[in-house]
C-alpha cells in the first residue's frame, strides 16, 4: 500500500485515501472537432505505460478532493515527486538525482 504526498494538503498519506487517475499531461485538444481520428485515438487510448519514472494523476478522493500529478517509478513504485494539477512537468534528471 503506497504512501502518497498530497501537494494541496501537504501531508503524506496512505493510498487508501486516493484514487489513481491515469497517465498525466494528456491534455484534451482545445478544438476536438479539428483533430484527426488518429490524434483523438491518441488522446483517448494511447499511453506510454513506461517502465520507470511515470507521469501520472491521482485524486485525493477522501481528503481535499483535488486531482494532482505525480512522478512514480513503476518498477519500485516509489514516488519521485507530486505536484499540483496544471504545473509543468518536473525535470526527470534532477528528480532521479535526488533519489540517489
Amino acid at each position, binding site marked *: *500500500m*503506497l*504512501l502518497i504526498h498530497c501537494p494541496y494538503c501537504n501531508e503524506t498519506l*496512505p493510498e487508501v485515501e486516493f*484514487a489513481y*487517475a491515469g497517465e498525466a499531461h494528456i*491534455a*484534451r*485538444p482545445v*478544438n*476536438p*472537432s479539428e*483533430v484527426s*481520428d488518429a490524434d*483523438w485515438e491518441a*488522446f*483517448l487510448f494511447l499511453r506510454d505505460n513506461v517502465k520507470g519514472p511515470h507521469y501520472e*494523476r491521482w*485524486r485525493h*478522493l477522501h481528503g481535499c*478532493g*483535488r*486531482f494532482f500529478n505525480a512522478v512514480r517509478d513503476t518498477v*519500485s*513504485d*516509489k514516488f519521485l515527486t507530486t505536484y499540483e*494539477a*496544471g504545473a509543468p512537468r518536473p525535470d526527470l534528471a534532477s528528480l532521479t538525482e535526488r533519489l540517489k
Partner: protein
Amino acid sequence: MSQYRVSGRGRVDTSRPVSFTFDGKTFTGAQGDTVASALLANGVHLMGRSFKYHRPRGPVAAGSEEPNALIGTRRGAGRFEPNTRATVQEIWDGLQTNSQNKYPSLKFDVGAVNDAAYMLFSAGFYYKTFMWPRSFWDKVYEPFIRGAAGLGVSPTEEDPDHYASRNMHCDVLIVGAGPSGLAAARAAAVEGLKVVLVDESPEAGGTLLSEPQVKIDGKPAWDWLAAEVEALKALGVKIMTRTTAIAYYHQNMVGLCEKLTDHLATLPADTPRERLWRVRAGQVVLAQGALEKPLVFHGNDRPGVMLAGSAQTYLNRYGVLVGTRPVVVTSHDSAWYAAFDLADAGAKVQAIVDIREGVHEALLTEARARGIPVKLSHTATATSGRLRVSKIRVNPVRGGQVGSGTEIDCDAVLMSGGWTPSLHLFSHTKGSLAWNDDLTTFLPEKTPEDCVIAGASRGLWGVEAALRDGAEKGREVVAALGKSGASVAYAVADDRTGTGVSMKELPTDRSPGKAKAFVDYQNDVTAKDLRLAVREGMRSIEHVKRYTTNGMATDQGKMSNINGLNIASDALGKKQPQVGLTTFRPPYTPTTFGAFAGYHRGSHFEVTRKTRIDEWAAQHGAAFEPVGQWRRAWYFPKAGESMDDAVRRECAATRESLGIFDASTLGKIEVVGPDAVEFMNRMYTNPWTKLGVGRCRYGLLCGDDGFIRDDGVIGRMGQDRFHVTTTTGGAARVLNMMEDYLQTEWPDLNVWLTSTTEQWATVALNGPNAAKLLAPLVEGVELTEEAFPHMSCVECTVAGMPARLFRVSFTGEIGFEVNVPAPMGRQLWETLWDAGQQYGITPYGTETMHVLRAEKGYIIVGQDTDGTVTPFDAGMGWAVGKAKPDFVGKRGLARPDLVAKGRKQLVGLLSEDGSKLEEGAQIVFDPKQPIPMKMVGHVTSSYDVGTTGRPIALALVEGGHDRLGEIVHIPMPDRTIAAKITGTVFFDPENARLKI
C-alpha cells in the same frame, strides 16, 4: 510423569496438567506445551502422513517451519481448522486434534501403497502419462490424484468467531524478539522512539528460550530475559506475542497477524480470534533469526528423526526428551551441544556422527566427559523402524569413498545440516540477496525499503553476536530517524557459537536411484527427484521447484529451499547464485482467511445504504433489490401476491389513479457559479443556455468516446444554479468525472460542484390524480398547466416543508418529484400517503418504475445501453446540441465506426404471437441459418405486466431505425419467436396524459 518429561527442565508448568485428545485418545500435557511437545512427552512421535507417499511422519522441527506434524484442530461446533502445526498449537483443556491424510488409521494407511510404487511417482510423472484414453483424465486419473493429495479436510460449517483489524503507526517495528530484536528494541526505546516488538511465539526470547545456560551481564539467560522484557515495557515498547509479521508491503507497511484466542480454554467475550494489523513504521528491523537445515540421507524422514536444535528446544523449553537413546548426525557444531544437553538430561546418546574429519578439541573433550562415542568423517546411509526410527546405519567416508556401514540402535536421530538465515520478509521488499560461500547461504544485500536486518538472519551465530548486532542495528535506525543513540554493550558468558559445513545429499553407498533421501518432507520430494528435473532440462530453480514441487508445501520451503538449491546446482555443475533462489512469497506462515476478511462478513461484507423511507417500505412488506451500494424497494407484494401480480397491480393503480415512489437514491449534484451554464454545455450533450430558470430538461452525458455514460433530469434553479440528477449507480462516477474535467481541463471555469444526493429525500408522485393530491399541500406555486407546466421546477413548500418541486414524468402520467430535506423525507411520505388514501394511493418499487418507463420508451442507462451505445443509437439525437462547438463526446461521436451504417439502434419489439420476449434474448434476421448464427441485436427490456394489454420489449437491432415494421426472429431453445420492429413508445404517444 512420563519417562520423557524431565523435571526441572523447560518453561512449562507441570503442576498444571492440561488434557486434550489426539485421534480420539486423551493425553495429558503441561501448561505451556504445544501439541507436539505434549505428545512427545507421552512418547508419541508419529503425528502425520506425507502428501504423496503417505509415509509415516513425526515432527522434524519445534516451530512454525514444521512440515510433517500437521493436524486438524477442533473447538466444538463450527470451530475446526485443518493443517494446523502441532509444533505451534498450544494445548488447552478440551482441545480436540486429529491426524490427517490417512485411511483407515494413522498407524495403518492404505495410501501408503504409493510409497511401494514410488519408482513410478517420480518428479513430474503425471506430465508423462494419464493421457490415454483421453476421456479417462476427468473420470479416472484426476479424481485419483486429487483424492490422494490434499492433506486435511475442509471445514464444513460457518465460522462463529469474529475477526478484527487495526492500523498502527510507529517509529520502529522490530520483527523477532530474540536477542538481536531485544537489543534493537532497547537501543531505539531509550531514545524515546515509539517501538513495536513482535514475535510469533507465546513469549519473547527467541533462542534464549532454548539456551538457558547462557549468562548475560552476569545473569542466567532467563532471569536476564524476564528483567529485560519488563524494562522494555517500562520504556514504552509495545511487545506483541503470538503475532506473526506475515508480509512486507510498500513504504514500510508490514502486515501482522495476532492470534488472540486459539490458546485459551474458554473464549473471552468480545475478543476476536485473530487481528490483522497494518503497521506503518518509520524504520523496520528484521531480526527473524535462522532456521536449521535437515541432512539429506535415505530414511531421514522416519518418525524420531528430527533437527538437533529442535530436540534441544523440546528439552530446554518444554522439558521433553525426544528420545532416551538418540544418535546425533551432523555437519555443524551446534548439534554437539544438543547431544550434551540431552545427555545431561539423562539420555544415553548412542553416538555423535559428524561428516567432518575434525572438530574443535573442546567438543571432543565434552563428548568424552559424557561418554558419548564420536564418529568423525562418517555419513548416515539409512534408518529403519516402521513407525518410529529404531536403527541408523552409519558408514565411514575415506577420501570420498564410503566404507561399509554399521547399524546403531536408537529411538531418535538428531540431525543438523547447519543454519539458514530467515530472509522471507526481507525478500518481500524485493531486497537483493548475495551468496556467501563460507556460510553456503544467501545473505541480505540491498532493499528499497527503510529496513535493516540484524543477528542470525544475516548470518551471525551466537547470542553475543546477536545482542551486539541488534544494538548496532538499533542505533542505525535511531540515526536514520534523526536521533543519536549511545552504544550498549552486553557481557555474555557460556555462549555457544559454532561452525559447520553445508552438504548436498550425504555420501552414501547405495544406488542414488534407490535412495529415499527427502528434501521437501511434506511434498515427498527427494534428492533424486531434483536431479531428475535437472536431467530433463529444468535449469532454473523456479523450474526445478515447479517440476518437483520442492518448497511448495505448507512450510513454503523453510526446510527445503537451500538443500534443494545445493542439490540442483550440484547437478547442474553451477554455483548456487547462477541457479537462483525462488522468491519467498507472503505470508510468512499460512494465515487465516478470517483475519483478512476482518469485519467485512455477513451484512457488513459491504455497506448497505438505505433511504429515509426504506424503513416504511420494510414495514409495508416491500421486497428489496441491491442497486449499487443501496437497497431499493423492488415491489410491494400483498399477501399471496407473486412479483408479477404485485407489479401488475402497481402499474395499473399508477396509470388509473396515483402511485408513490421513493426516488431518493437518484444521484444529485448542485452546480453553482457564474460559469454554471457553460460547464453544463460542455459536460452534457444537450444545450443549456436557453433553458429558463424554473424549467428542467432531460440531460444526456457521454464519455469522450461518444458512448452514453449517464442521464437524468436537470433543473435550472437560478441563473447560476443547476439541480442535476444522475442514475443511482452513477452518482459517484458522474461527480468524479465532472470534477476531473473541471479541475484538469477547464480550471478557468468559475463553478463548483456539491453532492446533494443525501441532502434531499425525493418522493415521486405519478398518476392522473397526482396534481389533485399535491395541489392543496403546495404553497408558492399553482399546479396548473399555465403556472407550472410539464418540465418545470420551483422552490416552494409542500405540506409546510421547504421543497424543490419538479414536474417531471418517468411514467407517462402526470408526475411530480418532491424533494425535501432528507430528515423530513419520512414525514413527507407519510403525509402524502395519508392524503392519498382518497385516491387509493399505491406505493410502487423499481420494477413498476421500469415497466411504466418502458411503455413510454424511456431508457435505463446500463440496461438499454451497455457502454457501446451512442445517443443516436438510442434514438435520442434530439438531445444532442449539434450547434455547440464542443461537448464531452462530440468528437468521439464523429469517429468512423460511430457514424457507420448498420449500427445497433434502439427500437421497440412486439412479438407476433403475443408472448413475452426474454431480456437478453438474441435477435436474427434469418432464423433458418445454421449455428453460429449472425446475431443482429438483443432484447434489452421486456415486460408483460404493464397496462398496454400486451407484452412489449425494447431492443437494440442492427440498422433498427430503418427497419420499422420489419419482422425479426428470436431463436429460443425450444422455438423461434417472430417479432415486429416498432417505435419505442407503446403508450400515449401524444403525451396527452401529461396534461393536468
